[in-house]
């Protein structure tokens, strides 16, 4: 039952080629599991499918990045040719003059893209964790993202059928974990992390601090322990 790992490398060491991963942080470094991503880059697993809001933005345009900081995001996995496909809502740079690593690889047909509206992406992941295989949503009806999908009318309005997303692994960033794996997030870094953690067969979480059971009050717990498989504490000095 011990979930605590001593290193990021050890925590990701069994991720095989062809895995599907959920990795997020909305777009900025705040909620991004930067250390686990680096460990996965060092491990080198190939042909990964990554489900993520962006395809690596902060490392290029500094989205949500504190002055003077250089963030790590899934861009390093693209650069290292580990990614086969990205499922994302925001895959390219808003600034065409500063393209993301993903965009450049996409232009060379080295990576595939499934473009999903952000709310549909979040809901598909939630559905994956909640045992809902498919749901209807109004988002994307009449646009390219609903092409080839079932459209149905409910009470005079049209909706598109979208299916659940699940992953083999989720690489999650939380603020604190107790030794059982109960998590809290900090501010807007909850974002996709608290949804993805529910939808992966194995959830690996990096946290600022691992604390004793009871040090996170019950009413504060954001993610109950059943969703967490592996926890690694970030040893480096942390400014929070």
């Amino acid at each position, binding site marked *: 039952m011990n979930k605590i790992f001593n290193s990021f490398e050890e925590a990701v060491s069994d991720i095989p080629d062809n895995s599907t991963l959920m990795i997020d942080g*909305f*777009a900025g470094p*705040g909620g991004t599991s930067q250390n686990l991503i680096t460990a996965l880059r060092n491990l080198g697993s190939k042909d990964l499918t990554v489900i993520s809001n962006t395809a690596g933005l902060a490392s290029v345009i500094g989205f949500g990045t504190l002055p003077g900081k250089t963030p790590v995001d899934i861009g390093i996995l693209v650069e290292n040719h580990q990614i086969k496909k990205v499922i994302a*809502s*925001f895959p390219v740079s808003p600034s065409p003059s500063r393209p993301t690593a993903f965009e450049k690889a996409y232009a060379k047909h080295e990576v595939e893209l499934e473009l999903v509206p*952000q709310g549909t992406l979040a809901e598909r992941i939630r559905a994956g964790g909640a045992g809902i295989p498919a749901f209807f949503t109004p988002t994307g*009806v009449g*646009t390219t993202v609903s092409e080839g999908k079932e459209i149905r009318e409910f009470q005079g309005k049209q909706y598109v059928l979208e299916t659940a997303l699940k992953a083999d692994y989720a690489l999650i960033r939380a603020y604190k974990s107790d030794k059982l794996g109960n998590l809290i997030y900090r501010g*807007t870094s909850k974002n996709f992390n608290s949804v993805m953690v529910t939808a992966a067969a194995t959830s690996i979480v990096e946290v600022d601090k691992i604390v004793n059971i009871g040090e996170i009050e019950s009413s504060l717990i954001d993610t109950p322990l059943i969703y967490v498989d592996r926890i690694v504490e970030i040893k480096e000095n942390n400014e929070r």
Partner: protein
Amino acid sequence: MKDRLNREIIAMRVAKELQDGDVVNLGIGIPSLCSQFVPEGKTVIYHSESGVLNYGPMAEDGLEDQDLINASGQFLAPVDGMSFFSSSDAFAMIRGGHIDVTVLGALQVSKFGDLANWMIPSRGIGNVGGGMDLAVGAKKVIVAMEHNDKNGASKIVNECTFPLTSKSCVSLIVTDIAVIEVVREGLKLLECAPGWTKEEIQSETSVELIFAEGIQEFSL
């Protein structure tokens, strides 16, 4: 060429549409400027798809917190009564009809109120982000944009040629020369920028406009 209103004035005009108590989501660009211009005495509740509600001003220099950002990646100041939630909850709010107004930028708006704002076809790839959800989910969609693109072409079109964000979703278009309402019959010119006549605005617009009775100058 005639003077056009700057981005701040467009934002100021949009801000006038916001009502006391409205829950508002502001898109990137001109829309993000609106919060500076909400009149005194009106309380507007801001929602961001980064997972925060009821935020206030941006963080001061040196007090930035990477766990406190809006959907544009800007740092927010912590304020009493703000709350945080997951992306699925953020979009449950949007899709569920709990956002009163969203202000979005646009590449094209059609005479039917169709919105295209996520991809320039020549680039071949684009960001849908949360725009499609906001366009279908918010009770009112206001577009804030320049009237014409950088080549001078009308961004108000009979039929969108760029990939759609959502059909028939826009209620009001505020540009650097006009305020236009989307009505059943088409696009109705309500207000002209100072110094502009309705005919001059029509000449910049590829859709035949309906001229409202008593068209006014921009009211701020």
